[in-house]
């Protein structure tokens, strides 16, 4: 943690990784170098071993050749000598191949090559001497051959052997040296590798701690992020649910609106029809208003006629009243006459009473006159009553006529007013007709508008339904996001560092 202070974690990680990789590469390099060095030493060792072996072979071959030579010398039969000679030849050939192999093996180490060439020269001399011996033997000069063997060949052989042993010793020493070198080299490599490995382990531990801490931090942050994601997903889910509900409601509302639109359309249709009928009614009303105007005019004329009649009636009544009064006067006169008759009768009765028995018949006449006067008076009274009744009736008629006249006047006024009203009404009706025409037009336009609105509403409905579907998908997505958050949380908890 502290190491990565001020550095980016990426850089720190790269550096840490780089360090480890670098160390590993170094280890590999060292190992490779060490191994290649060891292989070279091994080759050298191998070469030395092979050389030594060949040298031993050479020595044993030389030894065998000497033995075979001695056998040939010592053997008496020609056959035996021929066999020995054949063997020698064969041995010489293998010796030559051995020598060649040694030369090949020693190539690259000059000191030893010179030494071996000396040995080779000596072997060559020895071989020439032997060929001479074989020749001598074949000529039958065994003694001379024997002499050469002991005199010349023996010391040469000794010399060759010593030389070969010498070379072998040198080789042995070199081998030992190489082994020592290898041991030290491998030890050094071992220590170096151990050291580097320790370094790597340390770096790795450090690195691990750093990574651990980073991971922990990441994990923590991840947990919080996951929590946030979870909460957000839940919120989204809730919101989406709400949106879904809203969308469903919208869909319902749209469907309701569509229904309502249809109803409105129906209503509008009805309204248009009503407007049409109202228009017709208005036209009829207009006609009625015209008729009304005519009627009012006729009413006014009728009123005028009635007024004339009334005036005539009033005149008649006045005349009647006057005549009534004349009759009244006559009745007064008649009453007066009756009164006077009565008085006369009374006087006659009084006179008759004064006349005594002579006036008795007169008294009867007086009584008769009196009763006549009485009847006349009663009749007059009746006439008076009747006249009074007539007068009352006449008065009532006068009053009625006056009232009638007034009523006619009022009726005239009212009729005139009605005429004006009907005029206004007719204007209103005309206005209404205009309005109704406008309403009808508007209604038709409205209908057209409704017809346009209906498909629009259908589109909205479809969009709304799609919206609902989309919302449902969103809901599913939110649900899966929520599930994902939960799973992620579980996973993080599982890998809780």
């Amino acid at each position, binding site marked *: 943690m502290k190491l990565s202070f001020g550095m980016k974690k990426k850089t720190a990680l790269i550096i840490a990784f780089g360090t480890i990789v670098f160390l590993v590469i170094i280890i590999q390099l060292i190992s490779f170098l060490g191994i290649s060095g060891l292989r070279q030493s091994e080759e050298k060792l191998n070469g030395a071993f092979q050389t030594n072996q060949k040298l031993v072979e050479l020595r044993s071959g030389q030894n065998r050749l000497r033995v075979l030579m001695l056998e040939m010398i010592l053997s008496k039969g020609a056959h035996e000598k021929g066999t020995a000679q054949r063997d020698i030849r064969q041995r010489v050939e293998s010796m030559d191949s051995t020598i060649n192999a040694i030369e090949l093996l020693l190539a690259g180490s000059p000191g030893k090559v010179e030494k071996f060439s000396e040995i080779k020269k000596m072997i060559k001399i020895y071989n020439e001497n032997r060929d001479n011996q074989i020749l001598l033997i074949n000529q039958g000069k065994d003694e001379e051959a024997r002499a050469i063997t002991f005199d010349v060949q023996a010391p040469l052989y000794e010399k060759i052997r010593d030389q070969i042993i010498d070379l072998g010793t040198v080789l042995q020493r070199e081998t030992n040296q190489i082994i020592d070198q290898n041991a030290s080299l491998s030890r050094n490599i071992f220590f170096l590798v151990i050291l580097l490995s320790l370094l790597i382990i340390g770096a790795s531990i450090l690195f691990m701690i750093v990574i651990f801490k980073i991971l922990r931090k990441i994990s923590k942050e991840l947990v919080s992020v996951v929590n946030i994601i979870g909460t957000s997903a839940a919120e989204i889910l809730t919101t989406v649910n709400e949106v879904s509900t809203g969308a469903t409601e919208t869909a319902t509302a749209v469907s309701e609106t569509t229904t309502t639109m249809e109803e409105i359309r129906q209503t509008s249709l009805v309204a248009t029809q009503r407007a049409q009928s109202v228009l017709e009614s208005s036209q009829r009303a207009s006609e009625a208003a015209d008729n009304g105007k005519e009627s009012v005019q006729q009413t006014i004329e009728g009123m005028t006629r009635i007024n004339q009649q009334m005036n005539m009636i009033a005149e008649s009544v006045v005349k009647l009243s006057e005549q009534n009064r004349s009759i009244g006067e006559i009745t007064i006169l008649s009453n*007066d006459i009756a*009164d*006077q008759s*009565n*008085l006369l*009768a*009374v*006087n006659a*009765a*009084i006179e008759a*009473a*004064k006349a005594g028995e002579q006036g008795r018949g007169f008294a*009867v006449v*007086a009584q008769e006159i*009196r009763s006549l006067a*009485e009847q006349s008076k009663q009749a007059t009274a009746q006439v008076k009553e009747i006249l009074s009744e007539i007068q009352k009736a006449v008065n009532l008629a006068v009053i009625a006529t006056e009232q009638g006249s007034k009523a006619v006047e009022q009726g005239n006024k009212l009729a005139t007013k009605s005429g004006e009203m009907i005029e206004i009404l007719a204007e209103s009706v005309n206005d209404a007709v205009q309005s109704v025409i406008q309403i009808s037009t508007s209604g038709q336009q409205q209908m057209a508008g409704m017809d346009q609105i209906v498909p629009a509403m259908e589109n909205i409905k479809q969009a709304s339904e799609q919206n609902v579907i989309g919302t449902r998908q969103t809901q599913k997505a939110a649900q899966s996001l929520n599930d994902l958050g939960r799973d992620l949380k579980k996973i993080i908890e599982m890998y809780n560092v």
Partner: protein
Amino acid sequence: MDLEDQEILQKRARMIRGRKKEKASPVESLLAVEFMLIPEKYAFDSIYVSEVMMLHNLTTIPGTPSFIVGIMNVRGSIISVIDLKIFFNLPMKGISSFNKLLIVKHQQMEFGIITDEIVGTRQIDIHTLSAPPGTLRGVGADFIQGITPDGTILLNASNIFSDNSLIINQK
């Protein structure tokens, strides 16, 4: 019609018969002239009545008692006209040409009485008369001879004629 006429005639015959019977005892009944001093009906013995007539050309005389409403020319002779309502302190109604005049005469004394109406003549049975009540408002019991069963007040003519106030005024 004939039947009704017959009935009327029979009634009349009966009436006349009745009168004849009354005539048999003249002291007990008298012929009275009835007149109205609205609202009461008064009667005067026909012996004292000289004539009834319409009231006309009444001349008021200054300096006379209030019950003397004026004088009147009756066939050449001037007679004084009195109002019994004032004399009797009865409620006044006013005088008009519709009023009738009852002219009464006793010995040399003759004057007219204003009446509202002359009802007619009638036979009154004196026995049927009831005496006036003891206490009378305005008119003294002296002026009333009696009251008939139907409520007609029969005036005592002799007492009225002999009344001092009338006589004095006459002078």
